[in-house]
């Protein structure tokens, strides 16, 4: 093959398709440039930066919607009923607008010469992330976080971080893993320090950046060990290469390959655990969230978690395969993850109990929820390590891992709405009372009608965070607990983890209840007037709180859960 | 021995001598190169300090410097050297003594090491790298470290101000420096200085400065930026003697002080050589007839010595221009220095860079060939090593330098 042929081939086979799949990221990047250009030529006096950012992220969101549509029904067939036909027609129009085609977006598989992976999972995660971006943008517009002058800076950072997150959901290469984690971290350091005149904010940013840079360094070292040991940086070659490297030796902790692999994975996990705020690497989280504004904290708590879980799923599945030694490794990693998860939820819930600052309390609750979610990945790893026809009996390990990942996806979907609602409520309360501690919420229910609506939305979100039955949070937790229970047949340690998780759910009840008590039962302090929130704030709260219901006890629940299962299956088949 | 040195034509040539043997030839080649690099580093200081005195004396009508020190005052530099060596080496009490002592060495080592990437003539290069230009700029950028450390460690506020100014200035000017240095690279398609210089063989119209309008402007921007990165007037804020006493070297005396000066003149010479190699045809005279006549008359190898003389002459002219500018223009203020860089030089060099990348495409579309001047038989775009040669068959197409030198040798051998 000659140089020209190779170039032609690269452009025609790979590049054009990759660019199609990459369209949401491209749109966001273009929006960033547009934002800065507009400020340079002074257009931002007439068109505020937030509208440009919102338009860009909506466009990217629509692009992903079309991609998802292609994934679900190849060829974009039009359904017979009128609404389906209208929606299908609109999607077709959008597809033509974005130049998305069946050959490009519709076919799953690696793109950009194997650096990234395109499948339903990636598309779904990106859809969620872009939805969150749109919601966060609207929230900042409502609460007026960036002023006219600095709007372009803030939205540039926000969109830049989201580009990194979108990429993290589809990583298939160690470099892309590191790159996407850096791309989401570095702008978020700056976002945490966004209120730069405020002492707390700069302190939070300093802690975040110092710990973040350190964990990124450790992660990179682990990455270099793995890449060197396996002689490749592509995820899908890892399992095979590990088997080759072991060369038939038994799996033992004295073998150099095993030591280096475990060290490498552990170091790489340091970086991932840092972003997920899992237990030994969680200490930045309360400080950073307390110092940052509530909008930024809410965005980071959801978005960086979701994106990194996407990356973690892919990284974890790279270490699963056939062969005795790789099975051993997988089960070690799975049990290790489960222990980390149990530790995080315990510490998070216990520490949250003593907090008086709302954001700090929510930060600890975030740590606990990350613990629940990582259990799903742990269960998935344990299932993947099962030898065929082993202890699981009649259950199919692969099917069970699909269910475990389904639990994670469902949890993340619910978590998006319930956690965003909680942080949005903090922002609304701050705007009214200029305070962010639990006492500030006392007697919130005595406010005007709109304030009461916000209170109800907050109640829904907290109830779902606890996992009270009819709401989405319950089903999400149930799915994960079920997977952990089944995985316990393979590793009895997981039953212990399950017991801890159950206990934690009870503990969490108390601190969420403290806030609820302040909001609904305690009277307003003497010298404080009842709050009067604007109606648009209440409308926003209702829009976010509604899906918490829909994902719970609603006719849609079964369909949503099925969608999540189909999506999680795309990771394995 | 480092693998690169073994490929050098000089070593190959020496091994033909016979009684030297293979390793002896390598050693001899290494010695000769070390000597060359050392000379190129050390001599400019003496020559150009003398030149600076003479030129400034003429420019400002000051007769003193033109009358002292032997015939034409050539002994003056030597007398300076003797004086500096015999002076006491003081370390102030407030200084951080270790850093204070080390800082001049960093500066000297940086500007000395930069010369290893310079081809003095076709193939005469201490370290034949295909990233020569990039490495040269990288090493040159280390000089600032020594100056900052000197400024900081002196324990004097004048020095600290000087160091800070230097840091701010260098860090900002590195951007346009890099961008303008890349423009001839874009035109030539190589980072190898030897290759770039050899591509400018032939008529002076082949010199990259005349390659397109963007390289033409880029040359002047490059020259301006190198003035700043060498902290030469009008950008000599780091040592502005009328405001900061002596800037970063206020507290230095004797040998250590002279090291800073040695380094300054050496890097003046270095950037001038870089400019000549990148834009002004390197060791080619610009008259193909003359080049060929010389090669035919004295043979390929001695012709390189003459090539080196050509390179030296061109660079010396540029150094004289630097001196001329120093004694003509007033010093800028620090804010003016930063504005010049960030508001003017950076956008200009970005624009030039974009232009230089688009130019060949425009020419191809309009004229159907990648060069305006129909000079010579091969336009510069065609002279770039085909990508395939460098990539798929590395042994065959190692780099142009060795190939050119080999072909010259073969020609000699056949004769």
């Amino acid at each position, binding site marked *: 093959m000659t140089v020209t042929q190779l170039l032609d081939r690269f452009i025609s086979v790979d590049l054009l398709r990759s660019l199609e799949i990459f369209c949401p990221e491209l749109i966001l990047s273009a929006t960033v440039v547009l934002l800065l250009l507009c400020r340079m030529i002074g257009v931002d006096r007439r068109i505020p930066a937030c509208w440009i950012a919102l338009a860009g992220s909506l466009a990217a969101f629509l692009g992903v919607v079309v991609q998802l549509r292609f994934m679900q029904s190849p060829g974009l067939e039009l359904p017979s009923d009128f609404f389906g036909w209208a929606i299908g027609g609109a999607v077709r129009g959008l597809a033509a607008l974005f130049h998305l085609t069946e050959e490009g977006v519709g076919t799953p598989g690696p793109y950009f*010469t194997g650096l990234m992976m395109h499948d339903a999972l990636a598309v779904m995660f990106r859809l969620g992330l872009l939805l969150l971006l749109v919601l966060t943008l609207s929230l900042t517009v409502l609460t007026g976080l960036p002023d006219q002058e600095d709007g372009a800076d803030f939205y540039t950072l926000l969109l830049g971080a989201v580009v990194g997150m979108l990429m993290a959901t589809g990583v298939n290469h160690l470099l892309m893993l590191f790159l996407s984690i850096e791309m989401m971290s570095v702008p978020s350091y700056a976002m945490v320090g966004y209120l730069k005149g405020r002492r707390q904010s700069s302190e939070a940013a300093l802690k975040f950046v110092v710990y973040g840079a350190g964990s990124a360094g450790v992660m990179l070292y682990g990455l270099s060990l793995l890449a060197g040991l396996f002689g490749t940086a592509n995820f899908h070659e890892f399992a095979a290469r590990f088997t080759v490297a072991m060369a038939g030796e038994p799996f033992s902790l004295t073998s150099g390959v095993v030591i280096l692999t475990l060290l490498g994975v552990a170091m790489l996990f340091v970086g991932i655990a840092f972003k997920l705020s899992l237990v030994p690497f969680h200490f930045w989280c309360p400080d950073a969230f307390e110092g940052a504004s509530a909008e930024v904290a809410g965005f980071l708590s959801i978005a960086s978690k979701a994106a990194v879980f996407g990356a973690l799923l892919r990284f974890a599945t790279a270490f699963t395969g056939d062969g005795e030694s790789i099975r051993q490794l997988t089960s070690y990693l799975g049990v290790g993850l489960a222990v980390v998860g149990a530790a995080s939820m315990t510490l998070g819930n216990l520490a949250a109990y003593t907090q008086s600052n709302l954001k700090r309390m929510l930060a600890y609750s975030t740590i606990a929820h990350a613990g629940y979610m990582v259990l799903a990945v742990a269960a998935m790893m344990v299932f993947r390590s099962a030898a065929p026809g082993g202890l699981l009996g009649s259950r199919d390990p692969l099917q069970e891992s699909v269910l475990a990942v389904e639990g994670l996806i469902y949890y993340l979907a619910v978590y998006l709405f319930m956690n965003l609602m909680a942080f949005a409520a903090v922002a609304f309360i701050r705007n009214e009372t200029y305070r962010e501690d639990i006492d500030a919420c006392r007697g919130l229910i005595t406010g005007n009608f709109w304030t009461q609506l916000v209170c109800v939305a907050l109640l829904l979100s907290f109830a779902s965070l606890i996992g009270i039955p009819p709401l989405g949070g319950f089903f999400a937790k149930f799915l994960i607990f079920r997977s952990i229970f089944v995985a316990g047949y393979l590793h009895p340690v997981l039953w212990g983890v399950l017991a801890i998780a159950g206990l934690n759910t009870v503990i969490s009840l108390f601190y969420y209840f403290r806030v609820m008590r302040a909001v609904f039962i305690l009277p307003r302090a003497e010298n404080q007037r009842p709050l009067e929130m604007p109606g648009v704030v209440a409308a926003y709260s209702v829009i976010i709180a509604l899906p918490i219901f829909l994902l719970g006890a609603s006719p849609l629940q079964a369909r949503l859960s099925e969608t999540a299962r189909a999506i999680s299956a795309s990771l394995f088949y | 021995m480092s693998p690169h040195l073994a490929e050098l034509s000089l070593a190959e040539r020496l091994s033909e001598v016979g009684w030297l043997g293979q390793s002896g030839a390598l050693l001899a080649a290494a010695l000769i190169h070390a000597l060359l690099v050392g000379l190129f580093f050390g001599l400019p200081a003496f020559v150009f300090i003398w030149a600076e005195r003479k030129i400034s004396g003429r420019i400002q009508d000051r007769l003193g410097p033109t009358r002292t020190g032997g015939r034409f005052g050539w002994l003056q530099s030597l007398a300076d050297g003797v004086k500096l060596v015999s002076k006491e080496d003081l370390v102030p009490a407030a200084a951080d003594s270790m850093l204070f002592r080390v800082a001049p060495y960093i500066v000297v080592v940086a500007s000395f090491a930069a010369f290893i990437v310079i081809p003095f003539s076709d193939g005469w290069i201490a370290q034949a790298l295909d990233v020569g230009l990039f490495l040269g700029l990288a090493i040159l950028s280390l000089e600032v470290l020594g100056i900052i450390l000197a400024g900081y460690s002196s324990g004097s506020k004048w020095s600290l101000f000087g160091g800070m100014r230097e840091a701010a200035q260098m860090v900002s000017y590195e951007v346009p420096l890099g961008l303008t240095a890349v423009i001839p690279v874009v035109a030539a398609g190589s980072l190898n200085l030897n290759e770039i210089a050899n591509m400018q063989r032939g008529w002076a119209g082949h010199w990259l400065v005349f390659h397109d309008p963007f390289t033409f402007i880029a040359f002047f921007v490059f020259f301006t930026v190198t003035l700043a990165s060498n902290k030469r007037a009008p950008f000599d804020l780091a040592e502005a003697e009328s405001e900061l006493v002596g800037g970063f070297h206020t507290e230095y005396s004797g040998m250590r002080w002279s090291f800073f000066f040695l380094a300054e003149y050496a890097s003046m010479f270095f950037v001038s050589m870089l400019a000549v190699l990148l834009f002004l045809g390197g060791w080619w005279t610009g008259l193909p007839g003359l080049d060929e006549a010389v090669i035919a008359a004295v043979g390929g190898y001695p012709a390189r010595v003459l090539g080196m003389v050509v390179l030296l002459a061109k660079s010396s002219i540029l150094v004289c221009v630097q001196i001329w500018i120093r004694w003509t223009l007033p010093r800028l203020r620090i804010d003016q220095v930063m504005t010049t860089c960030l508001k003017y030089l950076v956008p200009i060099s970005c624009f030039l860079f974009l232009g230089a990348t688009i130019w060949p495409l425009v020419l191809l579309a309009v004229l159907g060939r990648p060069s305006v001047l129909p000079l010579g038989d091969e336009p510069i775009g065609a002279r770039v090593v085909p990508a395939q040669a460098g990539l798929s068959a590395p042994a065959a197409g190692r780099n142009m330098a060795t190939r050119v030198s080999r072909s010259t040798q073969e020609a000699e051998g056949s004769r």
Partner: protein
Amino acid sequence: METVIFTIYALAACGGAIAVMVSQNVVRMAFWLVISLGSVAGLFFLLHADFLGATQLLIYVGGTVVLLIFGVMLTASGPMLTIRSGPGEVVLGGLVGLAVLGMLVFGMLSVDWESQQTRMYSAAAEEGRGERSMGYNPEGEGNTARRLGAALLGVRFDRDLGRNSETLSTGYLLPFEIVSVHLLVVLVGASYLARTKRRRPNPLEESLES
């Protein structure tokens, strides 16, 4: 000869790193860091990664460290320069460090790298990728700029040329392009943070401050 050069660079790199760790003065730390990073650049040259060595010198030593020293000068005033760490921390950190180092070195020594490489090579050959060379092609040593450039373009001439395979080898077009967006965003963020205080105060912030 290579061993001698390697020893010099390796000792300088490790010595510099240890001095950074031990030193208590920030500016001296920066100096030792320069020594260490510069020697690492030397090791890169020894490993025939010329472009990387030059990049290391230009970006790390000439850029990042200068930036760090700049930061030291802007923030350091007298006592801040030598903030000492407590002895307990030092002992604990040292012990943990030694443990990690011991584990890493033990792992590295107990892997037989040569046989690993042979096994990987034969495995790659079985998968039909036998053209993949052992290690970085020593024939083209040092000639890295063009290879790297082509890889950043997204096409791996060094691997895919002369091979009729359906799949293309990993090219780095995407990171190369997207890193520019990242740098732009980061630049905006850094300049926002380092800019002087805004002109009109934000009432929200003031109230939160009190």
